[in-house]
Structure formats: C-alpha cells, structure tokens
C-alpha cells in the first residue's frame, strides 16, 4: 500500500492513487490532492462539485455520473471540464477523497 505525505501527515492511498480511508480527508488534504492533479487553486465552484460528490457518496455509496453531476450540482458540463480538465468525474472524486467511480457514464 502506497503512502503519501500530504498536509503534514503520511496518508495511505489505494491502488488507483485515491485515499484508502475517507477519514483521512480534510480540506487541506483536498488542496494537496488538487495540486497533484495539476489544479493549483480550488475555487468556490470546485468546492461546489467536491461537496456534491461527497454528499452523493455519503448517501449512495458511489460517486455520481457526469450526467447527474451536470444536472444536480448546478455546474454545467463545459464548466466541469474547465474546472477538472483531465476528466471531471474521476478527478473530482479523487480530490473529494472518494474511491474511483465505478460507472461508465
């Protein structure tokens, strides 16, 4: 199991490079993960997406699809790709401290 130093702590990662334990997550860790993903600063819009991802995961046990993200988070598809250029559903899940989403859409 890989560990990484983030926000002054050694944090365990899973095989996909996502947090192994959700409990390790805090906003500082999110910022460290974002930097790792090439996002230097998390704007309020980034946080809207991250918080939406966390809320859906808490309720349903999996991250939302990109379609649901677009429809329900209040951030449209184009903006999502600007915020998380290398794939919004997966990158935002990682930064939100969630495992890699399972869905195809």
């Amino acid at each position: 199991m890989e560990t990484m130093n983030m926000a002054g702590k050694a944090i365990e990662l899973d095989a996909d490079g996502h947090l192994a334990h959700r409990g390790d997550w805090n906003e500082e860790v999110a910022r460290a993960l974002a930097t790792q993903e090439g996002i230097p600063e998390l704007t309020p819009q980034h946080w809207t997406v991250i918080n939406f991802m966390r809320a859906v995961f808490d309720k349903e046990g999996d991250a939302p699809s990109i379609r649901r993200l677009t429809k329900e988070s209040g951030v449209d598809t184009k903006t999502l790709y600007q915020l998380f250029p290398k794939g919004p559903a997966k990158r935002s899940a990682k930064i939100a401290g969630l495992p890699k989403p399972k869905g195809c859409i």
Partner: protein
Amino acid sequence: MPENNVQPIEKVSIIVSHGSLEGVYPALIMANGARMEGIEASLFFTFFGLDAIIKKRMNDLKVATVGNPAMHMPTLVGALPGMSSFATKMMQKEMEKLDIPPVGEFITMIHDAGCEIYACRATVDMFHLKKEDFCDELDGVISVGQFYEKAAGAQIIFT
C-alpha cells in the same frame, strides 16, 4: 500499473456507420468515456450513422429486432408491427436507470465535454442533406481526407 513501454491512449477518432439504437450508443458511450478519462475524442458519422445527429431523427432511433440473432427472437416475431418500438422502449428504460441519456442530450453532453462532431461529406451529398438538418453540435461536414487529417495520432475506432 501500466508497463513502462506501454503508452496510454491519448486520442481516439470514432466512426459511427449504423443508425440503429444499438449501433449508435456504444460509440457515444466510448466517446464520452474517453473524455471522462481526459482522452481527446472526435466522432465521425457516416451512412446511416448520420441519423444520430439529424435533428428530426436523433431522438427516434430504434433497436433492430430483425436480422439480429442476439435478440433471441424469431425473425417473424421481430417483424411484427410495433415490435421494434417495444424493444426500443424497454431498452431506453433500462438505460435511463443507468443514467445513460437519450441521444440528443448525450450528443450535447459529449460536445460540451470537448468532443468534436463531424458528418461525412459523401453521405451528406448522397442523401441530399443540408446544414440545417443537423443538430447544433455539428462541427462540420468533412471529407474522408479531412477526417484522416484530424485523426492524426489517434486510434481510429470503426463502429
């Protein structure tokens, strides 16, 4: 973990040549999936595949119930009036459960995700289609030569 000498896919060009529901969706799911992975993607619609980007037809694609052994339905039953519509409705219901959007919405989503959408020049001329017949997401009607130019460095996927 990928092996050292294996390069990840960076760009795909997907050709859609069929106009049935089951002929179109795999390509759309692959294009959307590529963008979700940060892979550059474009879609090239040709022959009956054009139905998926023709405004009046795109939300009315049907499942083929005849000539499709995997439907597990005798040909004569598949040919009954309404059978194709029925199979289509069933499939659409299942897809909605998986959060797979209808074709029109899917095309908008894929285009917003940065995937370019092209129509085949030869087919457009053959079917006497005009620019205004197509959905707003169409980025252009291009020749096969232009397609290859745009596909430079991409994996080409024919569906």
